[in-house]
């Protein structure tokens, strides 16, 4: 069975600083990987996904993530954050043969301070 570990529960940063949210996964088979964002009192929104091909994937709002198979990681990065990026970020994984069942990490609260 797959599992996801988000290494930081809270990440405070200043506006315009770079940020990296870390995600490691565990699976015995090939996986698909996702990052979702949840703004206060809103539903989850897909930021980006890795299905196959290039290991560097770009998403919405200037975010990108890199799939590293050897380290079983899928870290999310943004070179310069804005106040509006304050939200909860979830990493999710799905084993390719498991249908569309997603396993989410515990989430990382990103707080961007002025």
């Amino acid at each position, binding site marked *: 069975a797959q599992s*996801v570990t988000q290494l930081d529960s809270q990440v405070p940063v200043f506006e315009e600083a770079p940020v990296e949210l870390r995600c490691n996964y565990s699976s015995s088979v090939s996986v*698909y990987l*996702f990052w*979702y964002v949840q703004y206060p*009192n*809103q*539903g*989850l*929104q*897909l930021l980006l*996904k890795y*299905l196959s091909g290039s290991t560097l994937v770009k998403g919405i709002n200037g975010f990108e993530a890199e799939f590293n198979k050897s380290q079983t990681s899928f870290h999310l990065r943004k070179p310069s954050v804005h106040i509006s990026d304050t939200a909860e970020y*979830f990493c*999710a994984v*799905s084993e390719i043969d498991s*249908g*569309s*069942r*997603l*396993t*989410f*990490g*515990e*989430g990382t609260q990103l707080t961007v301070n002025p």
Partner: protein
Amino acid sequence: EAGVAQSPRYKIIEKRQSVAFWCNPISGHATLYWYQQILGQGPKLLIQFQNNGVVDDSQLPKDRFSAERLKGVDSTLKIQPAKLEDSAVYLCASSLDGTGFFSPLHFGNGTRLTVT
């Protein structure tokens, strides 16, 4: 396009009472999911429907939770009787096809349940 609609937004009940949540997916989406998100945790899949059939309900506590998707469109999730540990946000999501990968999951805003 209209998003995934859920109601109510908030619900407060006492333990041992029953409660029902409603979800209307995006038009044309064949797959519907119910997730439970306990405070401080990531969402956990409770049940997945493909049209009006159940694909995966392995994590649904069937002694107290039930769900249906009549006519393959909207869905209802019920808890009876509720326990304190059921306090959570219940998220509904839908996707265009059965895999949910090449057409991403679209989530509703959720129903926040508080059991006292």
